[in-house]
């Protein structure tokens, strides 16, 4: 590990991370504040099962359903995934394409250590964002009149953090393994979005139901943490995926030529 490299990677992303944290807390509070007026008036939507699945149950009549639909099912993982993916791709392939990595790796540091340091920085950013979401959810739920336990809010935040680690690790492995930022961003984003789509549609289309097990998203949201608490098996799978992909990133970058 190179803590200096972790420090530089964090420093480069500090302003964006701080703005994201403040923004997310504000969004969570706003969502909570809207629940008494909007949520109660909408109630439970009577839509087709497929649409209800895409909307996280479409139950706007309860505060749990409201936060699941507004934050848990799409917005939360979207924000966490986007920040993790862009950070991981930028700090590996992005720096390589910008010709910065060629200078840094002319110094006595192993490529694998460099990637480990950058992975640590991305993990720290994911934890910071998740912490902001956790704070925002606690305040937002209180503003919305309460009704979700802190344990369940914590479960959602923890699942979100591990989902962020895994999606970031997809981009890290591709960025470090290929040096191609566009590829890393594109494939990692596709994995995230497809995972959401497949997880939502799988209960309705038996032919693709098995596909959900291949997507990190399933291990984040499959057990609905706001209702049922943390999914330990899901966390184990996401952790294993993160570790495997990070190891692949470390091996991948060590075995190839730097592109620039």
């Amino acid at each position, binding site marked *: 590990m190179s803590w200096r490299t972790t420090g*530089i990677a964090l420093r480069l992303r500090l302003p964006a991370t701080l703005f994201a944290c403040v923004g997310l807390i504000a969004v969570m509070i706003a969502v909570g504040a809207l629940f008494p007026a909007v949520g109660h008036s909408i109630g439970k939507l009577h839509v087709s099962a497929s649409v209800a699945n895409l909307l996280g149950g479409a139950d706007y009549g309860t505060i749990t359903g409201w936060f699941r639909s507004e934050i848990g099912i799409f917005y939360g993982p979207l924000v966490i995934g986007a920040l993790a993916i862009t950070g991981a791709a930028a700090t590996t392939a992005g720096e390589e394409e910008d010709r910065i990595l*060629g200078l840094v*790796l002319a*110094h006595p540091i192993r490529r694998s250590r460099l990637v480990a340091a950058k992975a640590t920085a991305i993990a720290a950013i994911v934890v910071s964002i998740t912490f902001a979401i956790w704070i925002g959810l606690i305040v937002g739920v209180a503003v919305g009149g309460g009704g979700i336990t802190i344990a369940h809010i914590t479960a959602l935040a923890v699942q979100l953090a591990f989902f962020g680690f895994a999606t970031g690790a997809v981009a890290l492995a591709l960025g470090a393994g290929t040096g191609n930022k566009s590829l890393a961003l594109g494939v990692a984003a596709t994995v995230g979005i497809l995972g959401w789509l497949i997880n939502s549609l799988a209960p309705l289309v038996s032919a693709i139901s098995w596909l959900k097990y291949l997507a990190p998203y399933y291990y984040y949201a499959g057990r609905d943490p706001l209702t049922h608490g943390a999914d330990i098996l899901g966390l184990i799978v996401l952790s294993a995926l993160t570790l495997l992909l990070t190891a692949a990133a470390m091996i991948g970058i060590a075995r190839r030529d730097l592109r620039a």
Partner: protein
Amino acid sequence: MPAVSTPAIAASGLSKDYGSGRGLFELDLEIERGEVFGFLGPNGAGKSTTMRLLLDLIRPTSGSAQVLGLDTGRNTLEIRRRVGFLPGDLAMYGKLTGRVVLDYLAGLRGGVDRRVRDSLVERFDADLDRPIRELSTGNRQKLGLVQAFMHEPELLILDEPIAGLDPLVQQSFHALLGEVSAQGHTVFLSSHTLSEVERVTHRLAILREGRLVIVDSLENLRKVAVQRLEIEFAAPVDAGEFRSLTGVTEAHADGATVIVGFEGAADAVIKTAARHDVRAIRPREDDLEEIFLRYYRAEPGK
């Protein structure tokens, strides 16, 4: 630690094939310790590829290289510890200041004497307090030079080091090269023009389309340089008389003066001139640049 008698750089059949004739092919090269060695060639000749191979940033297709007696594939960390590198087309973290970036790189490297770093910053008048993206190309290059020299490396690998530097800073840089060479350190620097390295190098190599064309000292290269004589006659003389002579590369008249460029002995030129009433003969400076351009364009003799 390997014996100091080993060359600073030794490449044997070193190749990197990018396909379509691009890359570096069968490079055999030895650079002695304490040398300031110039590596010349047009853009895309393979200079940067060679330097990146030496630092294990890219891996050879075939062949091998040793730096400071260490194999570039097996001992890359130790090599990078003892080498200072300035990449061509230098890029650094644009959002950060020069001070933060230099602190980071010094930390990665270890063993950087703060006083040495500060003296380099002062010498090059480097701006450490503004974000790097706000600096001009020349000011960024100064930071690149500071980071390459700040740990007093045994070997400096510098890719186009004076790109963007103003003449005053170039002078400081050349003086610094003289100092590190006097201390026994080796410098391997690339350029695409002779004038950039002529004043500082002991030996130089010319690379063209990935292949080494020639390695020699400047003195030896001067010996085969095109010589020019300016011959002033009492009355105008037909320059065509000189063009047909063996070894003459050019001849043209300017009034009663004929300028003759030739390779090898001057005998035939002098004897032809002596058939006329000669007022004066003035030698012109050997044109080294012409040699380099010929090597760049095609293999000499072809």
